[in-house]
């Protein structure tokens, strides 16, 4: 969409005004600085998704819209997970991070901060593998998506 002030609020406003779900939303400028790219994760019946698509296309600031889930695509989300890490847990979380291809990026005597970049699903699995009372805090970036292969928003 146009990289203009207000474009984000038009999209967010549309979702709330029409009662559509937003599970996550990410947005940042692209290789063309006049454009920014937004990935919205939403849910609904076929009819609702059709309306969401049409309504988004109607926004003057939206240049192109693709429903990634209609085709092969890649989703990535980054999570930063801060856990209590004392005693045996230190080894255990290190192993868990390795299994999930996560990285420990900050360490104190009592905590780890683990960075994990993967699909939203994998991140949920990773979080589920940690005991709830061991989690200090979590920050998730929301999902960014891109089509597989040579296909792009330009084609």
């Amino acid at each position, binding site marked *: 969409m146009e990289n203009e002030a207000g474009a984000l609020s038009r999209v967010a406003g549309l979702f709330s005004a029409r009662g559509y779900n937003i599970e996550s939303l990410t947005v940042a400028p692209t290789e063309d600085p006049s454009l920014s790219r937004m990935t919205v994760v939403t849910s609904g019946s076929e009819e609702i998704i059709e309306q969401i698509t049409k309504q988004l296309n109607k926004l*003057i600031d939206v240049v192109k819209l693709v429903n990634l889930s209609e085709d092969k695509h890649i989703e990535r989300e980054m999570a930063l997970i801060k856990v209590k890490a004392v005693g045996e847990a230190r080894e255990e979380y290190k192993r868990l991070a390795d299994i999930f291809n996560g990285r420990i990026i900050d360490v104190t005597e009592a905590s780890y901060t683990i960075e994990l970049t993967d699909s939203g699903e994998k991140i949920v699995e990773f979080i589920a593998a940690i005991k709830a009372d061991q989690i200090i805090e979590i920050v998730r970036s929301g999902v960014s998506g891109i089509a597989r292969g040579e296909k792009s928003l330009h084609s």
Partner: protein
Amino acid sequence: MELTGAEILVRSLKEEGVTHLFGYPGGAVLPIYDALYQQEDLKHILVRHEQAATHAADGYARSTGKAGVALVTSGPGATNAVTGIATAFMDSIPMIVITGQVPTNMIGNDAFQEVDSIGITRPCVKHNFLVKDVADLAKTIKKAFYIATTGRPGPVVIDLPKDVTVNKAEFNYPKEVSLRSYNPVVEGHIGQIKRAVTMMLSAKRPIFYTGGGVVLGRGAAELTALAQQLNYPVTNTLMGLGAYPATDKQFLGMLGMHGTYEANMTMHHCDVLIAIGARFDDRVTGNIEKFCPHAKIIHVDIDPSSISKNVKVDVPIVGSVTNVLQEMLAILKEGNKKPDEQALSEWWQQITEWRGVNCLKYDTESDKVKPQQVVEALYRETNGDAYVTSDVGQHQMWAAQYYKFDKPYRWINSGGLGTMGFGLPAAMGVQFAHPDATVACVTGEGSIQMCIQELSTCLQYGLPIKIIALNNRYLGMVRQWQEFFYDGRYAMSYMDALPDFVKLAESYGHVGMRIDNPADVDGAMEEAMKLKDRLVFMDFVTDQEENVYPMIPAGAGLNEMILV
């Protein structure tokens, strides 16, 4: 040469062919008013409330097809305009609203008369712009008009900080505009159009259901040609009235909640529904589960989001009505195919039977003035050729049912938002656009009081509007629902302490008349219409408890009407 932003605005509006600007001044727009003062081509109309500025611009647009323009100051000026913007938005009316704004360096500081006009209007505009640099102004105005008037039309707000109107820039009005993100589809998909024609011709019980899109898209002539060539029945939505000549024998009247028996029954029993420029509003469909149970549906609309929104359709066609209807006519001509005459004749027989119910009959012997009688008198006295605006309520429905509109652009009312207070200011806009035409405003004693202050504007500009007030001393539409669905508990629907409208009109410098005897209705109407250069406020004291029939109650299907 460099011009100030205010001068650029004025010059740009002239470039767009704007003749009238409806507005109200204030601090943030003083530089614009100063620029207006120094020229003569662009006529500024001073209303008495910003809501009226937007409704007048809207009435101008609805009666001409051109964008109406309103100018208001920041803060309260902008918030007062919101009702009018939303009204235009719901009915897809092309309109430009220029709102003043505090200087750019003060935005966000809770400055005097600052509101976030962009934020407040975002959900009820087609698009809006905050202009931060005077160098972008001309280009932005060009875009605004382009967006407002193409595709599915709608209001566009341009928010202008005061410093932008004072700063200078070179003035070059762009000849063309293109937006990479906005390219409305005009031409319908030819394969789909062919499928639609085949389906239409296979019909045994067809009906055209046509709406405001035919008026907005200037497709009335094509629709009439197509429907008459096929000899299929036609019904219009409230917004579509005039898109097909109401006096034609193929016309069944309005459909929907207060539609005719024949229109609703024909809809319910049809096998092919041809929807053109209509959006399957809930006032039209009744209970969606029971809507047109036997029908295959063709839907032509310029806005893809109108299609299959409420009702799933079989043949969707995205495109403009004119383009698609012309294609359909061409295909019919080429193929030389005819509808099923036998089936059609049986269908018309059935429709004639439904017509025989005479659902719009009312008591013509009453000793009280019947509102229907007043609208019929207005119709006769104006030869069916007046511009009729209305407010919202029972009177609006009676105007729609009893005034037979043969031409588009003549019926001007708020359908989607249902805004009381719309009628009189809209009539002002219409009268400015058509100075020699008869403009009548059918209203209620409740609605007229919502923008009554505009009687003053009408005097200032000598607008000879005929106000037809159907005064039932009730918020009649509310009272009707309370009678039907709340056991007659008339909570707050009685209009107490009404002013003497005759004296009120006179004190504003107009002519007032009160009519409380049915025998006087025709004579009074004739007399009022003779006063060609005066505004006449006709206060018809009508039967208080008259109801609008037919009526489809909530949850019912189109075949489950309450008749008289």
